[in-house]
């Protein structure tokens, strides 16, 4: 699969995940030094839910994003089928 061209939809969905994950990284680091900020924690939980949904939709189309039991696999073993990040 690494050599097959990927549809625009792959890149669009991936970018949506990258955007929301960036928000989560930022909130996470902020909360590491501001652990009492309830508003930021609410935002963190809201974006976490949204990120899980986006990731699930992506994985249904393009295969697992995370290994070691955090994503389901089709047959044959899907983890090694989809392209690696430096190949796209």
């Amino acid at each position, binding site marked *: 699969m690494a050599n097959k061209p990927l549809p625009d939809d792959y890149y669009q969905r991936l970018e949506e995940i*990258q955007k929301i994950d960036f928000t989560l990284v930022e909130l996470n680091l902020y909360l590491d*030094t501001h652990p009492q900020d309830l508003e930021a924690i609410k935002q963190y939980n809201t974006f976490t839910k949204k990120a899980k949904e986006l990731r699930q939709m992506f994985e249904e189309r393009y295969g697992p994003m*995370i290994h070691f039991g955090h994503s389901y696999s089709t047959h044959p073993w899907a983890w090694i089928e989809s392209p690696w990040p430096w190949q796209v």
Partner: protein
Amino acid sequence: MWLYEKKLQYPVRVSVCNPRLAKFLIEQYGGADGELSAALRYLNQRYTIPDKVIGLLTDIGTEEFAHLEMIATMVYKLTKDATPEEMKQAGLGDHYANHDGALFYHDAAGNNWTASYIQAKGDPIADLYEDIAAEEKARATYQWLINMSDDPFLNESLSFLREREIVHSQRFREAVELIKDSNTGKKIF
């Protein structure tokens, strides 16, 4: 335990094969103030840092590995179609002789990465001040790299990484204040 996620933190696109630019970017792969140094420094210091900032060192250290992967992707994409002659022309002949097209942890001048680049002093203020300095040095390096790069796609990714150094520096400065507060009971000097 760490998990691998099959995506880059931020997209990496390059305009054309450009091994000369890759040679410079390797500074942030295996150089003194590069992403490998950063990740290994924070993830090693965290075992003996006060509890209040273990989370921050863990999370920033983990993010640094995502940055290391972005730099690797840039170098890979900039060199994967280069001929040996092009590698030589770009000043990567020494690298090619030892590694072919493989990546390796060395700086732009070819010096191998060494643990001497990083420190763990066991003193939280000393460690966090080193971390702040490391972020500022990495930020400066990204600026010098952007100044030399004529690839607009690559510069987008480099700008993202430069901004991350600023955020990390800010968070480490807050960590210093958190530790000062807990050590002194908010005494005013």
